[in-house]
């Protein structure tokens, strides 16, 4: 009797005091330290997200390829390579509708290699004709979709957290997928229109975040955001997210990003998409050194801004490089013939990747060349051969011995 009583008491203490060891999946959360720095905690230990964005589309296929059900299970071979590199997290932008396949991927990566997964949802960003965030029916649909995802996967031990949207904030400015509402249309001042759209969007994300917390108190919820744009509104209307997941392409340095975030919206930061391509659009040839140089410099800054580092802002919990493998469909998604060749035509310009900024029209960014692993045309175990680039080895070595360098040397 006494023995039984003791056991019950132990279980109670366990549940009340930690809330960790007695639940089916470990509690993952972000804690604020005494010095105001932020730290992601997994199983009671600090966890630095050494992540990679993962979308293994083979040569000849496009964005709608169902790799989750690929009989060759690309994540098995990729996970092995990732583990050898030091990757501990993958970021998946959107889950597939086949729940069993999704669970298999999450489970294999975690059980075989200890790699955890951030699961995301586009929040209807790509819905035709545009995401009507001001429309209740649209909101309900997105809410149902996200909460269903959370309910389905929250107990998977490999899940690390949730990321809501990606660069959806740009739609509030009308830059990408512009939308409006009857209420916004009545406002003549475009600045006020922008503010109204931002309020609608961030309030909606906040509601989703609250719902997720009700369903799943064990994983943090992130707000996907392009740069810092609109976060002054998020600060007012989206306080219930646990962290900000920013997409940022600023070349060798993130500049004042970490401190600016502290001023604008003081939340933990995951750099959920950043990186560099490895094609020199000026010299018209692959340049692995260039990519390795930028990535190392970026990781150096991420480490500077982790918790308990005196140099930085202490608000960074890690990052996810864009991306694991090249994607050959991206330059012209509508042309299946183009999916079979790796296009070298640049599609946009970014002066902070300055080595090849003298390319025609200053277009220096090559969408199909962002992988830290190249795809070979020859097959290996039924998949395109994986060929690690220099960045793979440079970042592997950095993660093994992350000596933060104050100076950024040229490649």
């Amino acid at each position, binding site marked *: 009797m006494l023995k039984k009583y003791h056991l019950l008491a132990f279980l109670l203490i366990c549940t009340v005091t930690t809330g960790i060891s007695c639940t089916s999946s470990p509690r993952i959360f972000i804690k604020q330290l005494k010095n105001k720095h932020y730290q992601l905690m997994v199983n009671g230990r600090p966890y630095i997200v050494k992540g990679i964005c993962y979308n293994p589309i083979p040569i000849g296929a496009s964005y709608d390829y169902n790799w989750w059900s690929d009989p060759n299970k690309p994540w098995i071979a990729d996970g092995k390579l990732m583990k050898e590199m030091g990757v501990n997290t993958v970021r998946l932008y959107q889950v597939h509708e086949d729940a069993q396949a999704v669970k298999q991927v999450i489970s294999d990566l975690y059980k075989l290699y200890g790699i955890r997964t951030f699961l995301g949802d586009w929040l209807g960003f790509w819905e035709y004709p545009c995401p009507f965030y001001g429309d209740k029916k649209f909101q309900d649909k997105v809410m149902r979709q996200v909460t269903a995802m959370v309910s389905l996967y929250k107990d998977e031990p490999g899940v690390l957290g949730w990321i809501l949207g990606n660069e959806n904030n740009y739609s509030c400015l009308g830059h990408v997928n512009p939308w409006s509402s009857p209420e916004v249309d009545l406002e003549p001042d*475009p*600045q006020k229109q922008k503010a109204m759209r931002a309020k609608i969007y961030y309030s909606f994300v906040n509601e989703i975040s609250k719902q997720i917390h009700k369903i799943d108190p064990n994983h943090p919820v992130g707000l996907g955001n392009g740069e810092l744009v609109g976060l002054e509104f998020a600060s007012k209307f989206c306080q219930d997210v646990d962290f900000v997941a920013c997409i940022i392409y*600023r*070349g060798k340095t993130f500049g004042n990003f970490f401190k600016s975030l502290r*001023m*604008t919206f003081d939340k933990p930061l995951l750099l959920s998409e950043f990186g560099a391509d490895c094609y020199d659009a000026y010299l018209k040839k692959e340049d692995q050194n260039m990519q390795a140089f930028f990535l190392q410099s970026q990781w150096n800054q991420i480490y500077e801004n982790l918790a308990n580092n005196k140099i930085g802002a202490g608000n960074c919990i890690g990052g996810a490089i864009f991306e694991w493998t090249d994607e050959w469909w991206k330059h012209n998604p509508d042309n299946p013939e183009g999916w079979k060749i790796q296009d070298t035509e640049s599609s946009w310009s970014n*002066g902070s990747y*300055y080595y090849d*900024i003298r390319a025609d029209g200053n277009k220096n960014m090559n969408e199909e060349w962002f992988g830290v692993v190249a795809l070979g045309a020859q097959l290996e175990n039924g998949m395109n051969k994986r060929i690690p680039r220099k960045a793979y080895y440079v970042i592997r070595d950095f993660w093994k011995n992350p000596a933060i360098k104050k100076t950024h040397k040229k490649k």
Partner: protein
Amino acid sequence: MKKLCVVLLALSLAVPAITWAEGKAANSKEFVVYLDKNAKDNHYIPSGWIGDYGDIKMIDQSAENPHTGTTSIQFVYSAKKSQGQGWAGVYWQNPASNWGGKKGGFDLTGMTKLTFWARGAKGGEVLQKVIVGMSNKDKTYPDTASVEMGPLELTSTWKQYTVNLAGKDLSYINGGFGWTTTADLNPEGATFYIDDIKFEADPDLKPEGKKQEAMPFYIYVDRSTAGNHFIPSGYMGDFGDIKYNGASKEDAYLGDTCIKIIYSGKAAQGARWAGIFWQNPANNWGSVDAGFDLSLATKLTFWARGAVGGERIEEFKVGGIMGEFSDSDSATIGPVLLNKEWTQYTIDLRGKDMSYIIGGFAWSTNVDNNPEGATFYLDEIKFEK
């Protein structure tokens, strides 16, 4: 034997000359760029004409009141924008017209400053800046340093100016000296004289740190004002749609002039949008290390009005240029619907890192929101505490 002697004599003359051309000036106390026409100590040639080179006339043996010797160099800048640039300048190079493709620079290690004398024909002529060393990293033989100073408002009498080079790597300098100016700074053109340009070794001179600029720090006060900083050189998008006039007298908000911008909305380059960045130096998209430290600024203010009212500017911006030397931060307002009356706008810079700013100010608009184009005016653009 006689022949051999001649060859040896020729060699003995040639070798020191070659050595000198690539050699060190470290043991000297001074190293001359220009003293007088045909002075044997001259080491560089004023051959690198840039920008609106058609606007420049040079008399390199002007006998009109030289500072020392018998000649100085007279420059007449017409400000006619012959090449459509709105600015012009001259570099002293070695050999002539060497932009870094040939080996010709000097090792000036040990020199700590460059001095020169200048005067304007009337006084009030403004040099946008003077430069030592070229920004030519992409060339085979790049200069090891590039240092700027300016703007300089010249007086009608000779005055000596000094560029501090202490702490700079002067081991290879091919662009010994240069000046630039703009049509905005000298709308009626300018005639000025330069004399006695030389590098000097002053061991007591300390390196100049990047100084925090005092506030207010003006981008635009009035035309031809030495207080103006940054150059409206960064034309973006449909640059053919933009007409810029930095000396408009149409109802300036303050002073004599304001900026008038006509955006035609014709999508000349097919981009369907356009804008201008004010940069330092001109056309610097982050490739030149030349940002101002504006840390004391908490806001940028400016006055704007539309010609008819209702013109829509998508964005007014500070900073945000990304390159090898990126702006330390950025801030924006917009979209803005302009009033017909002058209205002051503010870009809040509190919490921003303004310690390194190349792109001082920018605007952008597009044809979708201005199908008939837009004419608007700007004045009194300044950083404030």
